[in-house]
């Protein structure tokens, strides 16, 4: 927010780092405790955090170099912490001293993000890079925190596996994950998504041409949108069998209604003055549709596409719970849960999240391309 907020964050970080020096870091099997100064690597981490806190307190100018220095020191400390947490003395035996340092690290991350957030650049590209980097830093911190906690407290894998273990599971079962990806995403999600959106869009355009149909469909469509449509998954499995066909059917039905409702609403978005303009040109229905109303409906269409990107993945995976050949992401999740093989479940989830994010990101990029003119996206200073 302002200089003071991240100065106080670094102040707290410094205090906690000092505390980490006093408090014990680990309890060995017997009674003895180990302190930070007794291990060179631990001491090095404390020093890094302290320097990071001091630097960010000293540098008040909202200057790029200061921000990057603090960020670099924070990342260095994170890397050090990730390395030492796996040591025998810390894994599962971490004590208050270590945890106070982890909290100090958190404040360092906050200070670094605040420094970066305060930067205002006039070059669009550099600013875009910083805008991308800040959330990445937060993501790195969240994953690091997850790793530090699960390893430091030796949380059972069944409850929550550490990211490093999930990473290993992904690496060691790439072929299985690839087969699941092919079954669920390529065979079910993509065709279902395309078909459902296409049909929803076409029905919306037709319904728009017939006002009676539109007035009837819009409330019904809104109602159906509120219904838990995933509930039809067992029915679709019964009708279309265990393989991908039933999943495509679920995805089509799930994506149809959001697209229908959004497109109908979007087609009604054109202003009266714009319609008068087309009328004054003696434009035909189709000319007015393609040149005026469809472009105006595009923000709504993209809204539906983005909603549907998540729905499609959920629909296909949930439908696989009700029956599937022995492959597919939903199948993997449900069977590996049964076997308490939670690493593999998380590996599937990670793939699903990655696919979902890429899908969404792609649509968001396309949206920027197509509806660049919309008030929410336009850049006036160009």
């Amino acid at each position, binding site marked *: 927010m302002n200089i003071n907020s991240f100065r106080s964050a670094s102040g707290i970080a410094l205090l906690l780092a000092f505390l980490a020096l006093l408090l014990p870091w680990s309890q060995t099997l017997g009674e003895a405790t180990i302190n930070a100064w007794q291990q060179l690597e631990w001491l090095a981490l404390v020093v890094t955090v302290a320097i990071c806190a001091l630097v960010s307190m000293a540098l008040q100018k909202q200057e790029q170099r200061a921000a990057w220095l603090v960020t670099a020191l924070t990342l260095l400390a994170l890397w050090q912490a990730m390395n030492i947490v796996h040591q025998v003395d810390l894994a599962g035996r971490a004590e208050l001293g270590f945890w106070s340092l982890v909290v100090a690290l958190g404040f360092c991350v906050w200070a670094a993000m605040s420094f970066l957030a305060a930067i205002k650049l006039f070059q669009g590209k550099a600013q875009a890079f910083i805008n991308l980097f800040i959330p990445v830093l937060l993501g790195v911190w969240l994953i690091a925190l997850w790793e530090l906690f699960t390893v430091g407290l030796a949380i059972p894998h069944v409850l929550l596996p550490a990211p490093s273990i999930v990473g290993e599971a992904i690496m060691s079962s790439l072929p299985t994950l690839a087969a699941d990806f092919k079954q669920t995403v390529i065979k079910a999600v993509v065709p279902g998504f395309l078909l459902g959106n296409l049909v929803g869009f076409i029905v919306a355009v037709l319904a728009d041409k017939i006002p009676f149909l539109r007035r009837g469909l819009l409330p019904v469509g809104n109602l159906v949108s509120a219904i838990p449509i995933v509930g039809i998954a067992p029915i679709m499995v019964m009708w279309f069998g265990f393989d991908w066909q039933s999943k495509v059917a679920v995805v089509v039905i799930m994506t149809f209604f959001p697209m229908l409702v959004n497109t109908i609403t979007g087609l009604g978005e054109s202003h009266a*003055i714009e319609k008068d303009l087309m*009328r004054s*040109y*003696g434009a035909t229905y189709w000319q007015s549709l393609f*040149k005026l109303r469809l472009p105006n409906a595009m923000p709504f269409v993209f809204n539906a596409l983005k909603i549907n990107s998540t729905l499609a993945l959920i629909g296909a995976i949930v439908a696989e719970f009700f029956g599937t050949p022995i492959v597919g992401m939903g199948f993997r999740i449900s069977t590996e849960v049964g076997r308490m093989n939670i690493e593999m479940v998380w590996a599937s989830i990670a793939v699903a999240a990655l696919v979902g994010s890429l899908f969404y990101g792609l649509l968001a990029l396309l949206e920027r391309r197509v509806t660049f*003119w919309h008030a929410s996206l336009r850049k*006036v200073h160009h």
Partner: protein
Amino acid sequence: MNSATADNPIDHVVEVNEVCLDFHTKDGVVSALSDIDLNIKAGEFVSFIGPSGCGKTTLMRVLADLEKPTSGSVLVNGTSPEEARKNRAYGYVFQAPALLPWRTVQDNVLLPLEIMGYDKHRQQKLAHEYLQLVNLSGFENKYPWQLSGGMQQRVSIARALSVEPQLLFMDEPFGALDEITRDHLNDQLLRLWQQTQKTVVFVTHSIPEAVFLSSRIVVMSPRPGRIIDIIDSDLPVDRTLDIRESPEFLAIAHRVRAGLAAGHSYDD
């Protein structure tokens, strides 16, 4: 008001006879236009002036077939307004620029040309020509939202002119602009009218604007919307903005103001 009856009806671009238009609102029937008679000859610059609610925009919308009259007859170019619209007989400039935000300036001017099916080469030529006329060369590839309000309205004028209609409807086109820009555009519009000999129907609520631009001023009054005076103006054709301080100008302006005051009761 029946001065036009002596003229040859063939010359009339617009003929309005006993037109009434009622709007049905939840508070009852509102008479937007009542017994309107008006003829407009080719090459005239006619302004409708009056306070808000007097029906000046509604009358123009009736001429452009954007509104259907409740009764009475309207002829544009000797045909019904609907036929005239379908024959693409007029250009219309709205109160707001109404530019499509996803089209560049150039593409916005091309819009009517595309709809009316001009060939590609001719489209480019006309767009170039009319953007030049409104002094917007060099802005072809900008988007409307990157331009000022005055520039946007000039684009919309270029767009209306690009199909080269003989009849131009302008509905308070400069209403939202600052006075300096407005003076400048008034000057340009007058010159354009003199050069091209188009028939212009112009709606405004500014007395100086109406007097400066028009060859005939139609003064209207609300509740019900009606014509209360039609004033011929005989200011020299090659007038400039300076004429607004001349006695002739002030005399006409005075008559318009008197007409407006007579038709307007301040009780409501």
